């Protein structure tokens, strides 16, 4: 009897302690929400979209006439490229894959692969997705998520490969205009983002997103990842990890000379679920009720099978 009382009291006590902790956490959350800061976008919104290809090229011609090249009559260089596989199947045995990006500079004026007249920068960008970034703080000894920002769209995957470090290739302005580099990844917070965060903190959140994505192997940079293998031919390879989110990957190839973009080329890699993987995913998301019943049926079947096997074993 003494013991039973103790057990009952213990269980009731546990429920009370849990409720208390839950209330404390709830209070802290409410408090965090009260400290709401004014909403300020971290970077100029998409109202003035960066002048892509055409604009950049025009600017390049205007600002910097090609100095060391004497032949004015020679045709202008352009870049063409493609990827080793345009579609990648994500199946049950998917453990990542290697994508090779290769291409050529038409009308190349460099004499050898090593002359370094041109720079190639390749950006692989996954589908923009919604993402929540959260920050923990220590509340009464426990680490709790207290601040959060929802980003409307963050590229699910982002790889930059270049012939040289980006800062040697060109200036930050050009990088920013073309969304090249981790600092310039397009990341827009949701309108009136939720808990109290200042603009400086928003910047920290954006940096944390890049850092965490890097840790997951989803944001990668290789400063010497592109190599010329002839006066016009170049090649780069990137390893997509197993956790790469499915969806199309946009591949952008930039040809630089003297720090200016003189030509661009785009390609696309499609990452798609296939086979059993596709079937199960569709099943789970399109017919969730049936999928749930299916899973429970398998579980019951496994249990019955085990029980039958046990009986036979005992006999």
């Amino acid at each position, binding site marked *: 009897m003494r013991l039973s009382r103790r057990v009952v009291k213990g269980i009731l006590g546990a429920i009370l302690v849990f409720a208390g902790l839950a209330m404390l956490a709830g209070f802290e959350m409410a408090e965090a929400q009260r400290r709401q800061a004014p909403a300020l976008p971290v970077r100029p919104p998409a109202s003035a979209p960066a002048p892509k290809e055409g604009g950049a090229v025009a600017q390049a011609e205007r600002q910097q006439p090609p100095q060391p090249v004497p032949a004015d009559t020679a045709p202008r260089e352009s870049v063409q490229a493609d990827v080793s596989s345009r579609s990648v199947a994500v199946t049950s045995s998917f453990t990542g894959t290697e994508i090779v990006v290769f291409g050529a500079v038409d009308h190349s004026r460099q004499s050898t692969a090593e002359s370094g007249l041109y720079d190639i920068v390749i950006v692989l960008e996954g589908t923009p997705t919604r993402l929540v970034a959260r920050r923990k703080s220590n509340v009464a000894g426990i680490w709790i998520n207290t601040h959060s920002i929802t980003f409307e769209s963050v590229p699910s995957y982002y790889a930059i490969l270049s012939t040289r470090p980006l800062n040697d290739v060109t200036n930050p302005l050009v990088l920013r205009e073309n969304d090249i580099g981790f600092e310039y990844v397009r990341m827009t917070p949701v309108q009136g983002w939720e808990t109290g965060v200042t603009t400086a903190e928003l910047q920290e959140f954006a940096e944390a997103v890049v850092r965490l994505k890097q840790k997951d192997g989803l944001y990668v940079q290789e400063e010497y990842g592109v190599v010329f293998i002839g006066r016009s031919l170049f090649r780069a390879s990137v390893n997509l990890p197993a956790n790469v989110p499915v969806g199309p990957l946009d591949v952008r190839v930039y040809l630089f000379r003297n720090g200016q973009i003189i030509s661009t080329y785009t390609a696309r890699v499609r990452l798609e679920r296939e086979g059993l993987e596709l079937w199960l995913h569709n099943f789970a998301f399109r017919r969730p009720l049936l999928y749930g019943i299916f899973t429970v049926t398998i579980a019951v079947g*496994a249990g*019955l099978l085990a029980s039958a096997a046990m009986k036979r074993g005992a006999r």
Partner: protein
Amino acid sequence: MNIYLPIAEMSVNIFLFLGMGGAVGFLSGMFGIGGGFLMTPLLIFSGVPAAVAVGTEAAQIVASSVSGAIAQWRRNNVDIKMGTVLLAGGLVGSLLGVEAVKLLRRIGQFELFVSLAYVTFLGVIGVLMLMESINAMHKVRTGKPASVKRPGQHIWVHKMPLKMRFHRSKLYISAIPPLAIGMVVGLLGAIMGVGGGFIMVPAMIYLLRVPTSVVVGTSLFQIVFVTGFTTILHATENKTVDVVLAILLMIGGVIGAQFGAVAGQKLKGEQLRFLLAGLVLLVSVRIGWGLVATPIDEYSISSIVGGRS
């Protein structure tokens, strides 16, 4: 050899997860427990998203409880009426629990609540079991007979309205306490990814005074149906049930349980409880450490699966 999990969206080593299922199955066979409270934290530690761990573990508990429930049923150790009342409460609790998971995920506090629930419940139960088993071992050594818990004494639980007669348990008590117990168990099961036997069994023995012979069978009866229901709800509401992961765990668990049951017969009851208490406390301390230790990175990111909800 790796396999890609369709819902968890990660590539995992098949043998690692089969082994995990086997190890937990071994312990559950040895101690006669469901093992959810070991499996769910283990899945979370190995990188499976907490919500997927909880949803998938519900499916595995169905598999591991079914054979036990059938065995008890054959021996007529199930009080169906009591089980049905517990089940009714359990279904309501499960419904509330799955909604709570949905809400907590949206505000980013799910991991915290799972950890807090584990630390509090496992901590308290581990300490109680440890004290009880040390007491029992001491009594065995000093030669005193272990105290036999006698049903029959009336406590406040028995003074409630809505009385029902439970023939199999030889009880005439109010339906409210079993309903409430079932609900708490269903709620915790849905949030923590456990069957809830570790709460239901002591509650039935000490609060309801159900005879020990029918306690295990009746609680297994309730667990099979409630976790089955919880699995379906997690699949429809949260889309967090990974059938491939569930199958891996089931295979490992079923095999491990056979060996565990053999090992368990070689140990005395109080020794088993002492070991189990130690294990429970270990899990509790490990999860508690995760709450108080300075995180490697204060920031975390998560995608919003299934849109707003």
